């Protein structure tokens, strides 16, 4: 490189660096009347419980994505080579239907809470919860069928993953049912539907979310 190019390059880089530093050391939040526009800079327009709830969904998403990734990697022959695909019990299709219905019931409950209809809200919630319990029972029956058939040994990673992932999904539903139970108790204690609006809304989102997780999981299980 000749000295002139070098000098120009150096000059340019000094200028660029100067601009970068200027940009990055600016304090725009200090200008325009300092603190007089305090009301502008506020928090997100959401109740804290909702923010925390969505953050929790982020954590759970991370968990399931990692499980799915592990599943995918373990299937690859370079990670073991002992994967024997298994046929899932037909009962799972019925269970899927139950879970969809429970999600619908939860959505119904959400609308009722908004309309402050306590009687029907109770009914909708009970429906949603019972359907969920039916789903969980169905999953256990499916497990039982698999055990009985003797073709799903734990040493086959395909069936081990089946048990593991359905169990993890089920535990998350049980967590939801705990909140569901507490909500029922509050209604029994006379809480108005209005006051439970946020809880019921978050419950419904949680149910939809776990439905989506289940559909993905089911698709993965059936297709592999």
């Amino acid at each position: 490189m000749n000295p002139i190019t070098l000098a120009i390059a150096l000059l340019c880089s000094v200028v660029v660096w100067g601009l970068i530093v200027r940009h990055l050391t600016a304090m725009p939040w200090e200008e325009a009347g300092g603190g007089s526009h305090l009301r502008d800079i506020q928090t997100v327009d959401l109740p804290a419980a909702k923010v925390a709830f969505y953050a929790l969904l982020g954590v759970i998403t991370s968990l399931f994505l990692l499980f799915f990734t592990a599943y995918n990697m373990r299937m690859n022959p370079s990670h073991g080579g002992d994967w024997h695909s298994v046929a899932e019990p037909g009962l799972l299709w019925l269970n899927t239907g139950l879970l969809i219905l429970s999600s619908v019931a939860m959505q119904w409950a959400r609308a009722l809470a908004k309309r402050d209809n306590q009687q029907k809200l109770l009914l909708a919630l009970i429906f949603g919860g019972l359907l969920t319990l039916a789903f969980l029972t169905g999953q256990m029956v499916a497990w039982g069928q698999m055990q009985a058939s003797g073709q799903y040994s734990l040493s086959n990673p395909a069936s081990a993953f089946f048990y593991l992932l359905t169990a993890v999904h089920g535990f998350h539903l049980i967590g939801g049912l705990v909140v569901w139970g507490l909500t029922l108790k509050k209604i029994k204690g006379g809480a108005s539907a209005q006051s439970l609006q946020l809880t019921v809304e978050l419950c419904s989102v949680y149910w939809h979310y776990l439905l989506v997780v289940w559909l993905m999981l089911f698709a993965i299980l059936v297709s592999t």
Partner: protein
Amino acid sequence: MVYTPIADSDDPHALHDPQSFISKYVWSQDHKVIAIQYALTALSVGLLALVLSGMMRLQLAFPESFTFINPSNYLQFVTMHGMIMVIYLLTALFLGGFGNYLIPLMCGTRDMVFPYLNMLSYWVYLLSVLILLASFFVPGGATGAGWTLYPPQAIMPGTPGADYGILLMLISLGVFIIAFTMGGLNYVTTVLQARCKGMSMMRMPLTVWGIFTATILGLLAFPALLVSAIMMTLDKTLGTSFFMPAVLSMGADAGYTGGSPILFQHLFWFFGHPEVYIVALPAFGMVSDVLSVHARKAIFGYRMMVWAIVAIGALSFVVWAHHMYVSGMNPYFGFFFATTTLIIAIPTAIKVYNWVLTLWRGNIRFTVPMLFAIGFIFTFTHGGLTGLFLGNVTVDLPLSDTYFVVGHFHMVMGVSPVLVLFAAIYHWFPKVTGRLLNTTMGKWHFWLTFLGTYSIYLPMHYLGFLGVPRRYFANGTSDFMPDSVQTINISITVAALIVAVVQLLFLFNLFWSLKHGEKAGSNPWEAASLEWQTPDTPPKHGNWGAELPVCHRWAYDYSVPGHATDFIPQNEPHNGEDSLEEMSAHPEEDH
């Protein structure tokens, strides 16, 4: 539903003041008490981890002298030392301790948004610690698998604690993750939703930025550890083969069909590398604030510092396999991960430059916290530079699993965050207790610790070049290790023991100053950020008395020309600005 921001619906009486001793100090929902509970628990296990390292050093310097240390014990000490230091001390102290104490005070809120959840978080953390400690006492003792817990050896006979120790370790980690998630959701939500009026995100002190970003990393990365812990537990207890390959054990088929240990490594390090930054980012934030306060200068390039924290956080999810170069990966993978690793050095280097530029022509006060903060710049730079070497595949291969690695990671994630912790304790102790820590003891503590750690870890790099392997009970004799290795090992051990004893001086200082320390007043360092502007020191339940503070400026107004004092608190209005009362009377008017 109409939504009212938390800062606008303030009611100082909403938090019921605790009545009895038990509800005030034991089942407390006050973030400050929970912070102290976290801190004391973490420091106690940390002390245990320190003792374990002392025993390892004794063994390495004087092999065959200690009958109570056999090869199995040694491996157990290595493992428990590493795991306790990384998870149960550093993660818990930075986030559960300092996060809990500082977030509400620095953001100007009365408490975390979910105090009950916060309390649960501590008790579940304590449970995880107890489970961990219990593993020392079960048959076979604690696990000796190394803090990385790699299968197959972690659960195979021949590894100490392969029966119960490893199970308790996995369970304890699972419980810890639950505790962390409860705390973490709280920290994130509080930062997002409960900041006081005027506290925009870009006015938050870097401490809050560091803790906030680290918490998000933790929330996304800890699930990877949970997944690997669950699957390993099943491999151990139910005989699944997620990770366990078909192996012979003691001459017999162990009953596994052909799982993938490499899969475990991917999961572990997908957690493990972000974990380094879960510990480092809060340290980055806290050291920035300490440097700025004691140099009486605004932090250099605040906006750059914030974006560097965020960028490092994001990048930390795409470098994990630099811990796996020796696992026989595809060369293109190695190339990819080496590249991302080098890229992450850019925002990291920017931070180091900015710390140095903050000191540049500052009006530096060489207080004890400042000494520790400056010490951190040294150790972190050293650890970071050796990291650049190890990030390259060809350099890493021969150095992997040698003392070079031990030297590197102790510099970068052992000593450096610990120095920041000390800086932070000396800096914020006056807010927590109302008294200053003793300076003379503090200076002795600093110099001996700082020089001591260099005498411990610099020679380790050299040992690594010679090829001295890590996790070895004894080196025996071999062609590649000259006799000087033993001499060096002895000197390292002497330094390590001195450093360990000096920490007792620190502990003594903590207790002594609690009673006899100089009274600090509310703002002994003349600092600008909100936590120093509380009406009471230590802050009372609810933190702010009758009214929440209003934030008018960033946290770094030091040595502003034309101002009477050399710092301006964050809650002081600008000249000519409406006074607080008028502003809340006509909120929208003057915009």
